[in-house]
């Protein structure tokens, strides 16, 4: 292998390593994001549909009263 060929091979290898490093960074970030989503879902209290509906009803009632 000649010196220019060796240099080209080394350059290609460095580029491959760089691409792998970026892929690992991306996967690590993705995993952290997924873990966060799982944790937030676990912490989120179940929504009280009855209370939410009643709050919407009262808010709409007050808004209508305010307009008249």
């Amino acid at each position: 292998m000649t010196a220019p060929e060796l240099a080209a091979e080394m350059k290609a290898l460095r580029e491959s390593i760089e691409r792998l490093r970026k892929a690992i960074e991306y996967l690590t970030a993705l995993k952290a994001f997924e873990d966060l989503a799982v944790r937030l879902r676990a912490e989120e209290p179940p929504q009280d549909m009855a209370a939410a509906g009643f709050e919407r009803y009262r808010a709409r009632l007050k808004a209508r009263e305010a307009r008249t």
Partner: protein
Amino acid sequence: MAAVRTLLAGIVGTGGSPYWYTPNAVIRSPSFHGGCLHPTHDVVYVIVPDRTLRRKESTRTLLGQVEFDVVALKRLPTSYADQNPFAAAAGTIRETYQARLAADVEGRLIADPTLASFQSLGVTKLEITSDDRSAEDTALEGWACAFLRVACEYRYGYLAP
């Protein structure tokens, strides 16, 4: 509101003449929430207070108006399927239950034009000012629900509120 509670608790359902459903419970609650949906009760009324307005009417009397909501709830039958309105049999859609609940409350509170049950409290006017059955507010899984707005006017002397 205690008088309203007593009146509603006295409803006896007889297939729509005059009332549809006998309530299992009539409760007063500072707000309406999932805890009001009793696990075994079939029909529940929840009285939720709102504001009270007062103004001087004469040198000796005050005119007050108290507003509150009656949340009327009826557990839907287990066979109920509102996902397919074409398949729903006549008389079993959610709105039918809501209309019957509203009719029961209205009949019990308003049908008595003399306000006999409230006269000792100085009540001069009692009306249902709105009736909300909209899906976006009242859709609860397994329940038919209607929100009825009630306004009650009353007079009282300064010395005997």
